[in-house]
């Protein structure tokens, strides 16, 4: 029998309200095949805008349909442009010296000669969308280019 979860349960899962024991049960059960659609519709309810979500790309970022185009949009409404271009190229960037003492204790941080932290923020809401830990001079990582016509 195909498994399917009520939307309320999935909402609790997304919001981190389920106990580890309940999550364990979900992890150990066969997967519910209608999950993707249900999660998209839950996310659609959570965002304050109305463009149709095609895929939840990552925390805060969605690919939406807008006037026949597929663009990346933040939960706050900020738009990043065509999904085929790395959204990071339209974000705010801060290159952090890991040993600046603001995040890590000095001894636990990477040496900036070897590795820097590249923080990407949404220009609309200041959410931290990604942190790259890369050697200085590394190109932006294009983490995910979905195949939308599947």
């Amino acid at each position, binding site marked *: 029998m195909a498994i399917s979860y009520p939307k309320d349960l*999935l909402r609790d899962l*997304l919001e*981190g309200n*389920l106990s580890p024991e309940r*999550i364990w049960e*979900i992890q150990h059960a*066969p*997967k519910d095949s209608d999950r993707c659609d249900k*999660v*998209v519709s839950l996310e659609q309810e959570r965002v304050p805008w109305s463009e149709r979500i095609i895929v*939840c*790309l*990552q*925390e*805060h970022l969605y690919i939406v349909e807008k006037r026949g185009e597929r663009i990346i949009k933040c939960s706050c409404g900020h738009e990043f442009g065509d999904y085929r271009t790395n959204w990071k*190229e339209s*974000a*705010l*960037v*801060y*290159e952090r010296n890991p040993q600046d003492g*603001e*995040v*890590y*204790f*000095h*001894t*636990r*941080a*990477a*040496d900036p*000669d*070897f*590795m820097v*932290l590249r*923080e990407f*923020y949404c220009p609309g*809401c*200041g*959410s*931290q*969308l*990604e*942190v790259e*830990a*890369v*050697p*200085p*001079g*590394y*190109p*932006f*990582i*294009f*983490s*995910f*280019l*979905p*195949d939308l016509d*599947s």
Partner: protein
Amino acid sequence: MGKLKEAVIAKEKSLKERSCYEDALLFKEQDPIQFEVLYTKLVHSVLNAREVAALVSASPVVREMGECVFGLYTAEGDAICLSVGLMLHIHTMSRMIKWMLMNDYEEKVGIREGDYFFNNDPYIGGTHSPDQLIVTPIFCEGELVGWAGGVTHVPETGAVEPGGLPASATSRFHEGLILPCVRIAENEEIKKDLEVFVSRNVRTPEWWLLDNRAKIAGCRMIRDEVKKLVAEYGLDYYAATSHEYIEDTMRATKTKAKSVLFPGRYRAVAISGVGRRLLIHVPLEMTVGRDGQLSCDFEGLSSPGAHAQNNTLPATEGVFMCAAIQHLFYDSRYNSGSLYAMKLNIPEGTVCNPPNIFYATGLLSPSIATGIVWNDCLSRAYYAKGYREEVFAPNVVTVGMHCGGIDQYGRMFGAFNMEASSCGTGARGVLDGLDTAYALWNPEADMGDAEVWEQILPIVWLGRGIQPDSGGFGKFRGGNGIESLYFVANTNQAEMGSFGGRLPIFTSAGIMGAYPGSRTYRNIVQDTDLKARIADRLPLPHYEGEMPDKPEIVRLLNGKAELMVGRYAARPVKEYDVYYQTNGSGGGFGDPIERDPQLVRQDVANKVTLLSTVERVYGVALDSTTLEVDLEKTGALRAAIRQSRLKRGIPAKQYIAQERERLLSGDLTKVARDLYDDILKISPKFAGEFREFWDLPEGYLPSDVSDQKTPGGSV
């Protein structure tokens, strides 16, 4: 040509030309229940073997910590089923069997009932010289129908440093005793002369020799059970189904990927480090086809070098598949089918597939990094499908302590204590990572009892605990790693070091807004006043403490203290020298300022987050005595953090333009320059993308434009 060699070649051809292992699943379709019943019995045989072998072994690494695995293979060496444990050997034993067949062992060496072949040459099978494999053929009605095999991690190999994982090795010839596919037993009898040979070439021979007995016992159990089952089900049925199980897994693999992963292209990068100033690049491009076809391309891997972090092809395949099984194929059969169903490109001539057997292979960091980038890519593929409980942020490249010399009983010894099997895990998409729970290379591992090691080794623990705030900060944080503080007891003739820690870099990235886990390191204090402090009943150091930049061992002890980064070779130690080791922590998930303040409060109460972190990283206002959360103040703190981000962040286009200028003027640190020089030369694909991204001229190499004056790192 031997009959089995022909079979190996035929199977390879079928996989290459027709992308299948068997054309049909005749016996499965005929009677699926009997098909499953036999499989379950086979799985029981390998699980039983593992349980019994652990009791025969004398080494705590196997007995207590589960560093062993058993498997059953087809006549041509493909895995049918595997026990739990060191699962990365699912394919490495397979490689060993195939190597013997392809090198004419059938005709030139002879393969007979009661033979046991040993291998710890990582270029043939296994991962590094401590991972030692034994296989035995299974004969039924005079025909070789399969192989039983077992692996244990033996924590001493007679290498240039004790413990089997010599960080200072620059070639294979520093890595101790390597026996490539040697027959160590005939007619069920272990060869005495070979035991003499081992006992005079490694520091703690009983581990090696008793582990051999453990593996032989396990292999025999599997062999005898398979013979019984063949008698029960018939040889034809067994021979056919043992192959169908692999084809069945190949099919299940694609079905699984198709149903739970979003199709598309995924990319991730992990960086590993060597010695004092060499970075290793481990990139992954994973594609999920619409039909569920998974392709994993590691083009862009660094070149191999004169260091201990080159990994063989069997090792890389093994560790990668171990990660693949845990994160995706955990509910299918553990056999060769999942590997054969994937398209894997690990380019020849790279650090994960060296061009010849010269290169040292002790430290598995690059191959572990293939698992780390897999965690990253796969998490995003699950996320897009809505399966957030399967998001598993990148795990860590593990490190650990090794020691050797003359022990408290006056005997020679060498050991690695395997605490590294209990690192913090990456965060999940809906939960924090687990503290001190896991290593990517052995999902069944255990940190072992300190007391057992204290009986064996001349060290005493002053403390062992969860290292607070070492997991990557995030909405869900990475699991914290283990920290241990030892002192040397009852010997003045010992050496101690770490097989890792290496460069000051992060290895477990955070994803979707979270930070990486802390880097690993160790501190050593020598010529201490610990003995006097114990006699005077003064406070002793137990952990790093509340001020990681001024650890307890520095504050509470007098002596010569050194923070050891990038210098990890074993060094001489004396009684009451104190050694502190961290073992690694997982990456986080999501923006840290979205973390539930109640989780932060709970972490502080459990002493896994320090009070000084709470406001700075999580933007949470917590009363330092009552630990009550002030929600209003928390909201204000978080709003202020957002504002400061918007203020300090610069538009990416502007950042790219600035960076481009830096690259054009050669303003790069030496380590970064060396890294790019190497991979731009070795990978045309990476070179093209690098130059295109930064809009650099054709043929650009950082060293060509460098003034060579830029600093080379402070280590």
